[in-house]
């Protein structure tokens, strides 16, 4: 048996980990905003799929990755509006409406892909941009500072989200609405408007997450490209205790598991592929069970707000 613990393999695993954490980061940070305002958006996976398809399709037709990204964000926004209209304005039960959104995204992306593209085709996605000087550091440089724009932005989004949530009035309003919507309402905060904003922000970021799968990591589209990563992203928000830094930890943990599983297969180590693929899903359930900061859960999470009744 060859020695798998070489520097090359380790750097390969870590490089893959950084790349694979991008969709988790975008989707889970977005979902953090949404959940902090009190809305569980379970449609993240569907948004990622449909946005991922449109990003892919735009690049497929024009070769312009920025157009793809823009289109993905637009799809995210539209689906975010759908989710907020049904869940906030019509006050649907969030678990159900989210599943509806997911089924819609899954079906729609598969339909459009089969009609408009047909076969799995690869495109040229975002290219790595090496950061001068930092990128030349041995070992670390190639892992951290030789990635594409989406990867850098995903990691920059962590402190940015933290700042918005902890240091701005907007962040305070979002959390107030999620903790006690009646109290927030009584001091003049428009509960529905804040929830619309948070859900749509989350959905746009989920759109970016989808684009990062289809035009940054895989550089192709296929049926059910996400294979449940959107749901794992929702679980990461629970795991991260509704804080951006916690979400970062969870995203890294999961992408490490994914990356290790991929490298196990690349190195030809004798583990049945299906059992290796199972790993992240088992990990999700374990993580949901053991590492939950229940105390930090927004009090009004998953609850509809009826003005003047609570």
């Amino acid at each position, binding site marked *: 048996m060859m020695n798998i613990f070489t520097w090359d393999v380790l750097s390969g695993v870590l490089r893959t980990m950084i790349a694979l954490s991008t969709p988790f980061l975008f989707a889970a940070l977005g979902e953090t905003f949404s959940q902090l305002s009190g809305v569980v958006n379970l449609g993240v996976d569907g948004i990622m799929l449909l946005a991922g398809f449109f990003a892919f399709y735009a690049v497929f037709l024009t070769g312009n990755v920025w157009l793809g990204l823009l289109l993905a964000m637009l799809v995210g926004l539209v689906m975010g509006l759908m989710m907020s209209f049904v869940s906030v304005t019509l006050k*649907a039960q969030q678990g159900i409406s989210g599943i509806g959104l997911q089924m819609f995204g899954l079906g729609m992306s598969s339909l459009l892909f089969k009609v408009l593209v047909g076969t799995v085709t690869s495109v040229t996605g975002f290219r790595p941009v090496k950061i001068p000087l930092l990128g030349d550091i041995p070992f670390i440089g190639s892992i951290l500072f030789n990635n594409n724009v989406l990867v850098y932005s995903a990691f920059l989004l962590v402190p940015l989200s933290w700042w918005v949530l902890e240091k701005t009035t907007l962040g305070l309003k979002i959390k107030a609405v999620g903790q006690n919507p009646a109290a927030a309402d009584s001091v003049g905060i428009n509960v529905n408007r804040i929830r619309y904003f948070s859900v749509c922000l989350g959905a746009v970021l989920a759109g970016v997450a989808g684009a990062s799968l289809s035009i940054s990591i895989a550089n192709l589209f296929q049926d059910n490209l996400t294979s449940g990563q959107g749901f794992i992203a929702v679980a990461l928000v629970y795991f991260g205790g509704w804080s951006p830094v916690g979400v970062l930890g969870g995203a890294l943990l999961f992408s490490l598991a994914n990356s290790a599983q991929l490298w196990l297969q690349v190195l030809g180590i004798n583990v049945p592929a299906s059992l290796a693929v199972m790993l992240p899903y088992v990990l999700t359930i374990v993580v949901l*069970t053991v590492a939950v900061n229940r105390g930090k859960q927004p009090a009004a999470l998953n609850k509809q707000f009826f003005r003047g009744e609570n």
Partner: protein
Amino acid sequence: MAFKFPVKSLAGREPSHGEGFEFFLRTAIPFLGVIAALLISAIILLFLKTNPIVAYSAMFQGAFGSVNGWSQSLVKATPLLLVGLGVCIAFRASVINVGGEGQIILGALAGTWFALTFPDLPRFILIPGCMTAGFLAGAFWGLIPGFLKARYKVNEILSTIMMNSIALQFMNFLLQGPMMDPEGIKAGTFLAQSARLPPTSWLARLIPRTMLHSGVYVALIFAILVYIFLWRTTIGYQIRAVGLNPRASRYSGINVPFNQMLSLTIAGGLSGLAGVIEVMGVHRRILEGLTGGYGFTGIVAALLGSLHPLGMLPASVLFGGLLVGANTMQRAVQIPAALINAILGLIVLFVSGSALWIHQIIKKRKTAAIVVALPKAAAASEETKS
């Protein structure tokens, strides 16, 4: 109309036992949602340069236009009804079971294992044995997320979805390894499917040259059993009480987490039964793609059937028909059957979005009725006094 239709609205509010108009609202509005979803999909079809009328008539013809179409629709309605009954029981206890796919797989695996291990058992023991094995395996797959919810408050939607993926990989592992058809290995095809079940375990076909099998009766029997369970037994009453008002249930001594766990376990069992019936009635072996999305479509059927066993009978036939028709449509106008998933998603959005609205209309009518009735009653009592 004296028929009472006790339904907990999706908005999680008190149920109201109602008369004809209420029944009409609760059933008709969701079906309007189906029509709206079909209309939106028609617009999508137009964008894809397909005539929606041609596509939909192909769909309808395929589903309900012939004996063969009808029997195929009923074949697909069978697992939908069973999965949906489970979803209904879980939903009554405020638990959302999205784990149908995984539970179907586990049930199918266990049933197949039973039939292949005891092929010499007489038919009248083998068939119930397979069904029991399937039910138990599915129930086990529902018990895990149920226990995690009861004990650790793990969100059951997420855990059941993860259980689906785990079950799928588990099935792939078994079908590519330990359970692979020895015939396929001998012939060198290595298809990812199990050996063929012994003929004694096959469910009888009801109409010659169609797929319609006796499993449809089993599903019907379970619809009645679930109705009796929910409305005529103490446990069923407790499950419904937990869903209607968890706090009041707790005060009156009902064990809320236990009932939620139980409801998810039964839901898993019913999905497992759907899986084993699909194996014994249709494929006669377990193979990839066995679940056919029934785990998700069953949720939609349950929602559209107002989470009531009787309402779910027409709903599951409708969705069975949609699934069959989608394949016909794919052949006729080259629109992928995936369209049906998008339609299902829209239906769920419409149904969940209209739930509270329906509830409020009914509430307003009731208040209005009281406002009208009270002065009359007062006047009547005045008259009797004087």
